Every structure is written in C-alpha cells, then in structure tokens.
C-alpha cells in the first residue's frame, strides 16, 4: 500500500472513524485535506471528555473544575509551544484560526508600526486570508503592497523577492506552503533576506504544519500562524506564534475580559502575554483537543508522515502525468501533499460532481487564491490534497474517477 513498509497505515485509518463511512454507496475517498482534515478518535473523544469531566470557565474560578479546565488548556499551550519549538509558552496565542492570527498581527502590529510609504511584501501564492488583512491595514496607513511573482512551475522567485526588498520594507507575509499548488516556499532564505533589511516576517503555516516539522527558533521567524482544523484538530481554533519582544510591544487586538490587569473608567491596564491577546472566553474544549491532535501526530512521528505523504504525492503525480488530457498546475521542485490539475475541456466543477458520485472528495474552485488562478489564466482547478491516512489505492480510485469524467465528456 505504501513504499514505506513500516508506516502503520491500517491502524491510522482505523483511528479516523469517518474513513469507514460510505458516500453514495461507495467508500469515502477523502482527498480534501488541504481544506480541512478529518479527526482521529482521540480528538473526538477528548472533546466529549472535556465537557463530561473537566469543564468550566478558565483562569477565573477558584473551584475545582475551573482549575482542571485551566490546567488542561495551559498544558495544550505547552504542547503547541513544543510543537513549534517556541522559546516560551507566552509566545503561543490561541486564536480562532490562521485568518484571525493574520488579522491580529496586521491590525495590532500594523497600526502601531506602519506609516505612509512603508512597504509590505506578499507573494502571488497567498491565500486571500494573507492578502486582504494587509490590504486593509495598508489602506489605513498609506502603506504599499509589493507582490513576489512565481514562475510557470509555481516556484517562488527568490531573485525577484530580493529586488523588492528595501529599507522601506517593514513586513514580509508569505505562505510556507501554497494551498493552491503545494509549492514549498524557501522560507529560511525569505527570512534571512528580510531581516537583513530590518523587515519582519510572518509565515502562514496552514498547509505546512500537517506535513513538515516546523522550528520557529531555527527559522528565526517573527510570526507564524496555523489553523487547528487542518492539523486533524477542531475547527475554530488556531495558533499565532510571535516573538515575545514583538508581542509585548504590540497593543491589544480586541478588548474584553481575560485580557486585562485592572479596569477603571479612567484607565485600564492590560494583562501579560499571552492573555493580552486572548480577550473573552476562548474555545476551551477546542484548545485542549488541539493539544490532543498534536500528541496524536507526534505519536506517529512527523518523519514517517512526511515520507508517507511524499510517496503519495510522487505516485499521484506520476499517474496523472501519464494521462494526456491532464494538465498539472504547480510543478515546483519542492512540493507538499497537494496536486492541482485540470482536465482538458472539462470544468473543475463538473469533475468534482462526477468524482463525488464515486465517493471521492476533492476541492474544485479557486481555493481562495484568485491571484494564483489569474497567474495560470484558469478560473479554477481540481485539487487533490493528501493527508496522513490516504493510500495509493485511493489515488487509483481518483484516476478511475478521472477516466469516467473523460468518458462522459468525450
């Protein structure tokens, strides 16, 4: 089933209850992990366990249940800290997802630091969530957005990036892995070059953390965001990592309970990190279950997951490249777990509907990355995105499905 004979694929598949569901009478073939990953039983059970045995509001009550919930939530923060190898747990801010993390930095850091004429560098590869928040703050501050181009393979052009950098550059916000194409961006070089110009770097890690081990200290990245639901955890919870000194200097993003030290009508002082950025009651059960998801992944091991997914991507690429009506979009040398393609003369939505009829879930559309679609002059693509539980058999099912699409539209 996989080139890596020791990978416990059968056990992993049994750990994800939804994978034994049928869709329209066919076994579910879930190849839409880039949009959202399925959840292992451990995560599902943890959510129940929290509400059944250790739930109350956090950081407030003196009572037993509040302490239990607070301890579990803070243990999850340490799990996330270790997962990213952050220097301190204070640097882990729980947010609703990567979108909120980026909005937090753009709004809080941007309002305090951006002035007219400053430049923000993004790339063509960005998801809309790493474009629009920067456009909003740039408009307010009078800052200018510059965009790093990609070549025909979808590769991030480091030379062009270097030309855009200048002392005017204040922030570089780019994705670690492209959600539409799978391109891995050379983030170590991006960060080194930005820092040489005195600019900060925010990385969108949504598509990287499920596939690639991330070490924020080794990268020396300033901000890193990811969403829990793409990491086999719950939706509605994510992480913003920021260097302590930067977060400390930033004003709060939202005001409310939990983020204060003392409130009077004359003056309010704010809580210490990380609570300064966590106004209101958080998604307590979600935070705890995100820790469970990370523990689950660590139990399998990232090297093994990465090797398995690499094999799937290589196998899928080889099979689809052999079909002469398929145009693979995004052929960068370094890619992770995502295969975007079009079938000649067939619209992706028709492909998606016909594959769905065979129980195969793929994403069709612009993947919230319209600049990428424009770059390749397509309205949309079909995207198969792989997760830790996918198999070569499922890629064979995808190929059979594509053959049926071609028969129908021939």
């Amino acid at each position, binding site marked *: 089933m996989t080139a890596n004979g020791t990978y416990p694929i059968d056990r992993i598949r049994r750990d994800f209850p939804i994978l034994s569901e049928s869709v329209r009478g066919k076994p579910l073939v879930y190849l839409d992990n880039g949009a959202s990953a399925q959840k292992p039983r451990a995560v599902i059970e943890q959510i129940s366990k929290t509400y059944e045995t250790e739930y109350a509001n956090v950081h407030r009550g003196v009572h037993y249940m509040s302490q239990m919930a607070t301890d579990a939530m803070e243990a999850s923060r340490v799990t996330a800290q270790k997962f990213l190898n952050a220097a301190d747990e204070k640097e882990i801010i729980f947010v609703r997802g990567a979108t909120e993390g980026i909005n937090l930095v753009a709004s809080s850091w941007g309002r305090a630091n951006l002035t007219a004429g400053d430049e923000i560098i993004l790339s063509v590869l960005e998801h809309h969530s790493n474009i629009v928040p920067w456009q909003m703050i740039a408009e307010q501050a009078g800052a200018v957005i510059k965009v790093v181009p990609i070549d025909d393979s979808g590769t991030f052009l480091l030379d062009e990036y270097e030309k855009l950098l200048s002392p005017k550059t204040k922030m570089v916000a780019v994705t670690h892995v492209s959600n539409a194409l799978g391109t891995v961006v050379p983030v170590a070089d991006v960060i080194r070059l930005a820092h040489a110009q005195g600019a900060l770097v925010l990385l969108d890690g949504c598509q990287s953390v499920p596939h690639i081990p991330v070490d924020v200290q080794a990268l020396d990245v300033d901000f890193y965001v990811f969403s829990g639901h793409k990491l086999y955890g719950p939706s509605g919870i994510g992480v913003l990592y920021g260097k302590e000194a930067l977060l400390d200097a930033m004003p709060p993003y939202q005001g409310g309970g939990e983020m204060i030290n003392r409130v009077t009508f004359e003056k309010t002082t704010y809580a210490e990190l990380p609570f300064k950025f966590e106004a209101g009651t958080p998604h307590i059960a979600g935070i705890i279950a995100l820790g469970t998801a990370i523990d689950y992944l660590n139990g399998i091991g990232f090297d093994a997951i990465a090797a398995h997914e690499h094999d799937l991507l290589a196998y899928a690429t080889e099979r689809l490249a052999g079909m002469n009506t398929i145009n693979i979009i995004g052929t960068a040398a370094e890619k992770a777990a995502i295969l975007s393609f079009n079938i000649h003369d067939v*619209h*992706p*939505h028709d492909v998606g509907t*016909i594959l769905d009829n065979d129980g195969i879930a793929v994403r069709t559309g612009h993947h919230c990355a*319209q600049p990428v*679609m424009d770059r390749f002059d397509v*309205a*949309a693509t079909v995207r198969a995105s792989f997760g830790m539980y996918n198999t070569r058999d499922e890629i064979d099912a995808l190929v059979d499905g594509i053959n049926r699409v071609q028969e*129908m539209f021939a």
Partner: protein
Amino acid sequence: MSADLRDLYQEIILEHSRKPKNTGMLEYATGEAQGNNPLCGDKVTVYVKLDGDRIADARFDARGCAISVASASMMTEILKGLTVSEAVSAFDRFQSQLTSKETPALAEDDELAALMGVRDFPTRIKCATLPWHTFRAALAGSDENQVTTE
C-alpha cells in the same frame, strides 16, 4: 454511474456544453450584463437586443462549467422572439422550478426540462441560474449590469 448523475449530465446538456448556441459578443446590443459566481470564479456575459418590446437577439460569452454553459445556450435559444414580459415570466418560472422542490418539475417536452436534474444537486443550482440572473440584469439596463449568485 448513478441515475442521478445521468439525470444531471443528460446528452442534451452535454451537447449544448460542447457546442453552445448563440455565443460571442452581440453588436448593437441594447443591454448587456456580467454575471459572476465568486465561489467558483465562473463568469458569463449576456447580451440582448430589443426590437421594440420583443427580444430580437440574445447571445452570451461564458467561462464556466457544463451546466452553466448549457443553461446559457438553452436560455438564449428560448428567449429569442419573446416579448420582455414573456421573457421575465420564463425567468420567474425557471427560477422557481429550480429553487423550490414544491414546484413540479417541467414537463418532459419542455425545452428546459433537461436542466431539472440540477434540483438533486444543490451545490450546482447556481450554475444553472447564473445566466438567467445575468439576462435579467441585462434587461434591466445599465444600472444593474453586474450580478453575482451570492
């Protein structure tokens, strides 16, 4: 392949999508509008040319799926020769037939009956209705010449 899928992609739909009728810009159009579906990025432009109260010609340009192209192709075939009020009634009838399951499906001999399969695919209904909404905007004139299905 399931019966549902055959209902959606009937031969007449596939035929219209392969060789759509009435495509391309219409010179001297009296109305035109662009429709777009922000969810999928599909775009359609519909042109109408009125001769008094009657639709003398209707054409379209589309970048879309088989369902939206076939719907636009069939729509332009039907519209030609109708009066404006007949065309608006046709729009209303089609719209309610696709979006309300309580409305009985069109009779089998109706020219649009082939599109009724879309009713079983809720995520695809907007593909079929986009050209019609765009046509409605083209009739309304320049004030409302941009429509979206969202």
